[in-house]
């Protein structure tokens, strides 16, 4: 049911597939974005960033909005009257996230390959393998954030906040613009964001093959521990 509702919802599809693919195709073909010191090819720069963006769209924004409205409309309260446990509900939402992200990976990498992405010296298979591990950790971190936001606010407030946070993370995480474009103090701050950490890992895995700085893995891991704990503490199943 969760998967079917996600894939049949136009707004969800726009968020989780439309926007990432649009960004990749547009900025991959119209060379207006700055790239970094590793490559001049915008597609090579964009594919890892757009994959990270797609994970964030699904595991944070889409989850926060759908769960927020489920809570607002009383769906969660209604499900609470059935034998379904909270753990089972969270597991169902998590499985949905994983399946959707698999679909995203296939489509985005397919579009990237069509635009000429060759994963530099790393090779496509190796690039995908490391990114998959990062994707799992990032999914836990972002899902925790999504539940935290959805459980603390009303449906419309969640919608507004999730989109606002998404925009900030999009612009400030090195996913679309290289981190080198930021000044040093700002770079130090944004490197603490889970989206930046994920972007650094996917960039490293999919472009140079170089081991990503440990800081990025630590930052992502810490978020993956803190946000689920906070969500389980503060999430309320009904607005009242």
């Amino acid at each position, binding site marked *: *049911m969760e998967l*079917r509702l996600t894939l049949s919802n136009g707004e969800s599809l726009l968020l989780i597939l439309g926007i990432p693919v649009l960004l990749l195709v547009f900025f991959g073909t119209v060379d207006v974005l700055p790239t970094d010191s590793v490559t001049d090819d915008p597609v090579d720069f964009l594919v890892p960033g757009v994959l990270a963006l797609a994970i964030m769209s699904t595991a944070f924004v889409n989850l926060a909005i759908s769960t927020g409205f489920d809570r607002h*409309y009383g769906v*969660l309260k*209604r499900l609470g*009257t*059935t034998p379904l446990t909270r753990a089972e509900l969270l597991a169902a939402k998590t499985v949905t996230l994983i399946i959707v992200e698999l679909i995203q990976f296939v489509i985005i990498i397919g579009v990237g390959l069509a635009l000429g992405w060759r994963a530099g010296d790393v090779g496509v298979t190796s690039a995908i393998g490391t990114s998959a591990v990062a994707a799992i950790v990032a999914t836990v971190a972002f899902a925790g954030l999504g539940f935290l936001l959805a459980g603390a606010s009303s449906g419309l407030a969640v919608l507004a906040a999730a989109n606002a946070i998404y925009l900030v993370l999009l612009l400030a995480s090195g996913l679309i613009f290289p981190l080198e474009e930021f000044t040093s103090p700002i770079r130090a701050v944004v490197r603490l964001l889970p989206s930046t950490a994920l972007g650094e890992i996917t960039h490293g895995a999919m472009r140079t093959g170089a081991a990503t700085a440990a800081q990025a893995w630590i930052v992502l891991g810490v978020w993956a521990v803190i946000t689920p704990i906070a969500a389980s503490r503060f999430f309320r199943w009904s607005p009242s």
Partner: protein
Amino acid sequence: MPVIDVSSLTVAYDSLMAVNGISFQVAAGEIVALLGPNGAGKTTTMEVLEGYRTATTGSTKIDAADGSIGVLLQEDGIYPAAKPRDVLALFRALYGDAGPTVDELLQRVGLTERSGTTIRRLSGGEKRRLGLALALCGNPEALLLDEPTSGVDHAGRALLRAAVREAADAGAAVLITTHELNEAQRLADRLVIIDKGAIVAEGTPDDLTKASQSSGIRFTAEEGLDLTYLVIQLGAQITEVAPGDYHAATRPTPEAVAKLTAYMADREIMLGEVRAGRHRLEDVFELLTSSSQDVADPPT
């Protein structure tokens, strides 16, 4: 052994006593209506039974197997973008695919032809019917239905009453809350009348009206009648309590009623309604919930 047991239940919010020491039970196969005006404490009581609210003191118990409780919330949330057939299939699966099939459930609540319509496009009454169908998944041993016929049209109510009665006949203990007297009277085996958080009366509709005797004769006719001669004949004061609604302060004997109808017949005045003897349930309810006085008026 009751299936639903509420014992000395109290629920307090700060200084407000929403439920004040109520006790009642529902047996298997029985339909009990918790009846009361808005704010009486019905939904609060129901929410404690559902597990969404904590009792301040007292206890509630539902003696049913795990997962064998069907619930219809007052504001029933269902996935707006889903379809009735899909949601019923989901809920049946949550109950181990036991009990009536999806098609049977849709038929019981009259939604077969709307089974493929997105839930947000259903009317309020149709959503309520779907809510009841969801509550019936898995053949529950206990049913908690909060305002089950709210917003449902006449035909839909008949279907819902039949579905609830069928569940009770199959052995479920059914507790409904309602502020609609007619629904309570038609559906429930027993009524528990609650006002300001306390039970003011309990019994079958027949028991409640039998215990309450009217102290006069009420009748309706055209407004502003000159009833001077009737007053003399009855030897009692007649008051027009509302336009066209009259009260004769006399013992409601057959002779008095005969004098009244003969008077009206002689003058070819149409009578709308004559009530004497027992109060209607509506009158009992008004007497009990406007102030907590004794049900039976002393005879004059």
